[in-house]
């Protein structure tokens, strides 16, 4: 193999049954201008070392499975082209701020729990019969939350967030952005339930608006913005609670 046509990948390896500490292993991979880092990792698994463990699925930036640290930056490896790093080496590690299960695979359980806590689905007090048709929504009402609905749960934002790595109570960027997405949905009536969760402890207040979650988001969701808006909404509801009975303070007008 012509050395000019290869690229070196240094990959984080950790097998719990044999390793007490992680190690880095170097692989020489064919350089192809069209390849992304995920292609290189798949090539290693197929041709060099079948024990290399990683997650991936769609290869087109939709499933959110292949997030890893590429040269210290949280990236979807299906969207990180080798040509952007060539001829220099590429260091691949599992997403930081998560426990490592094996090689490049992290434990997602904590994230999934936090996601469930914010109830990321439409909650209705009065459920219409399907014969009544859909809950109608204007383009202006859709615009209020559409950006936050683009999250693919890739967890890059958690790897970029210094608070997520230090404060377990903090629900984190993606979960809070999704909670906010439903709070801003004109069809939803579950804002009070979600705000109860968000207002507890450091759940939302842990965010200090570092803003790097928004910087690394591959779908331009802007979780940092969503969290600040959710904080304002939560504070507003908190003070409303002193003067109004619970459940009457939330109103979603024509613009959401």
């Amino acid at each position, binding site marked *: 193999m012509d050395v000019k046509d290869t690229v070196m990948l240094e990959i984080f390896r950790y097998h719990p049954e044999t*390793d007490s500490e992680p190690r880095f292993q170097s692989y020489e991979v064919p350089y192809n201008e069209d390849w992304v880092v995920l292609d290189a990792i798949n090539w290693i698994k197929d041709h060099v070392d079948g024990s290399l463990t990683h997650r991936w699925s769609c290869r087109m930036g939709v499933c959110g499975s292949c997030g890893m640290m590429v040269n210290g930056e949280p990236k979807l490896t299906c969207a990180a082209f080798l040509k952007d790093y060539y001829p220099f080496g590429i260091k691949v590690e599992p997403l930081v701020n998560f426990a490592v299960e094996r090689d490049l695979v992290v434990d997602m359980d904590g994230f999934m729990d936090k996601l469930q806590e914010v109830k990321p689905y439409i909650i209705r007090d009065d459920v219409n019969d399907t014969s009544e048709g859909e809950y109608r929504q204007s383009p202006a009402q859709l615009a209020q939350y559409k950006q936050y609905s683009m999250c693919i749960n890739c967890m890059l934002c958690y790897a970029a967030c210094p608070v997520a790595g230090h404060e377990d109570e903090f629900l984190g960027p993606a979960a809070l952005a999704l909670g906010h997405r439903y709070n801003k949905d004109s069809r939803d009536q579950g804002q009070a339930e979600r705000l109860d969760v968000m207002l507890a402890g450091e759940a939302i207040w842990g965010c200090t608006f*570092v803003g790097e979650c928004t910087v690394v988001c591959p779908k331009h969701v802007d979780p940092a913005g969503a969290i600040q808006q959710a904080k304002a909404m939560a504070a507003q509801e908190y003070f409303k609670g002193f003067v109004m009975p619970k459940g009457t303070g939330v109103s979603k007008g024509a613009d959401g």
Partner: protein
Amino acid sequence: MSGQYHRSHRWAWFFERPGYLLFMVRELTCFFVGGYLVVLLVTLGKLAGGGETALVEWLASVSGPWWLTAHLVALVAAVWHTVTWFGAVPQAMPIYLGENRLPAPIAAIVMGYGPWLTVTAVILWWVLR
């Protein structure tokens, strides 16, 4: 689950990404803003308590090179603090016109720079008239 590897927290995490460092700089500027506020309050206290003579003496005592340097540093820090927060306002308080969101630079002018410059102009007019 046993067998997982937990990476240790990094005490110097703020050096790991330029964005972290900029965040820390933004947060630390509040000390300078707070410090300058103390100077301003003391100045007002001198004026209220001792009149013009006490104020002139106080102003003379804070006009040395070290104090001027401190004022300059506080000014730079206050401007940085202001600019970074004005930059963040459109994220935290989006303005929608129908289904269109006001672009961030315009929103920053509408909610930040515009009122800031207006208030500054009014104060200058009031002081210099």
